[in-house]
């Protein structure tokens, strides 16, 4: 373990990182059709140009590979399809199938034209093998409330959520 020299720019050389980090995103629009809590699915991870991913993921599960204290930032792109009544949407962190205290945040969406990003952040001590999920719940179903991936012309895709994890210690 340890930082073994800066060989990052040399072709064909694997990068080795001392601290774990990871960035995940989802290019899939996820709207809720129930009032129960829903795990947000992730479908891509940052490219490390040949390096080893220091955090794994499978669907919505982010799997920690190195114990430590982590900063978690999740930024969902929220919106809805129909209705002009203000509706709330909540996001929080779930660790090993247990909801994390004081991690919940709420945003209110007024109408379908409104597109907002709500930052969710948390610092947690995580062990190797711990699984982390970003959860979502909405006030009402049938209005297409959820997170949206947008594909603007001439720009990169706007993912429905971007999650960043950085090991602090």
């Amino acid at each position, binding site marked *: 373990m340890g930082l073994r020299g800066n060989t990052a720019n040399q072709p064909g050389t694997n990068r080795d990182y001392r601290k*774990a980090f990871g960035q995940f995103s989802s290019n899939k629009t996820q709207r809720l059709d129930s009032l129960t809590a829903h795990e947000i699915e992730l479908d891509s991870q940052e490219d490390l140009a040949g390096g080893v991913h220091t955090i*794994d993921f499978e669907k919505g599960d982010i799997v920690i590979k190195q114990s430590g204290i982590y900063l978690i930032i999740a930024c969902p792109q929220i919106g809805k399809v129909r209705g002009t009544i203000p509706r709330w949407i909540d996001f929080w962190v779930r660790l090993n199938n247990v909801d994390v205290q004081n991690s919940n945040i709420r945003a209110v969406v007024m109408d379908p034209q409104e597109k907002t990003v709500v930052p969710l952040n948390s610092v947690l001590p995580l062990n190797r*093998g711990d699984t982390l999920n970003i959860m979502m719940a909405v006030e009402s179903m049938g209005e297409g409330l959820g997170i949206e991936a947008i594909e603007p012309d001439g720009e990169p895709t706007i993912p429905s959520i971007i999650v960043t994890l950085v090991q602090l210690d």
Partner: protein
Amino acid sequence: MKPSISHFQGTKFTGVLFFLAFLAGTSTIHFAAGVEERDSTCERFDWNQSCDLSPTAHLLVGDVLIAGGIGGVLAFIFYRLEHRNQMKIDKILESQQALNDRRKDYAIEHLKSTLNLTLFAMSTIRGSITHYNAARMLKEKSDQKWIQSTILSQLKAQEGKLGRILQNVRTILTASNDVLEPNVVSRIWGVCNYIIGIEVQQKEDGTMMYPKYNVCILKVRYLIQHLQTYSPVNHLFSENEEPYESPLIPSELGEVKEVQQ
């Protein structure tokens, strides 16, 4: 605890005995000196061939010599007794530590084998699910129904078995939580909670699935790896846990192909 109580009683008895000896000795000397006739020309503290010790001098010299001597002897005896006591206490503590180390070694070994058993139980459940899903491809509906119902009952039994294994892991944790590190206990407890909360589900198309199977396997493997860093020599976990490795999460495609076959 019995030996230490009798030891304490013995010490107490010795102390009382010495105190009585001291009292008798000093009293005898004082009384003997007090009744003795003394030359009137001698001063109170004169002490030579013609002058015996006065009662006052007897009292002082007697006290200093006898009390000092007896006190010294008593101090030595009590020091020896205390030293012996301390050695006995150290011995008890050492044997207790050795017992704790043995319990910890046993708990780690038992946890490792039980977690391996958990892996096996999960893989058999997944195997049954694969067979259940493969049975859907059978043309004969009666065969399909028979196979699926048989596999379903097997699945129930296997889920029950997995539950019992996880309960066993929890029992080990409860029994050994005084010797295991708190973070190890909480970590294993968390994984047990995670696995026990996952149930085999049936999809809309009738196929069965084991949700988050790969993540469960990964978590258990990480735990086993961590337990394998335990050294029975110094009874500690190594902090040099392998940080990164090639991804263990296999693709879902493998499972799909397996089912299709």
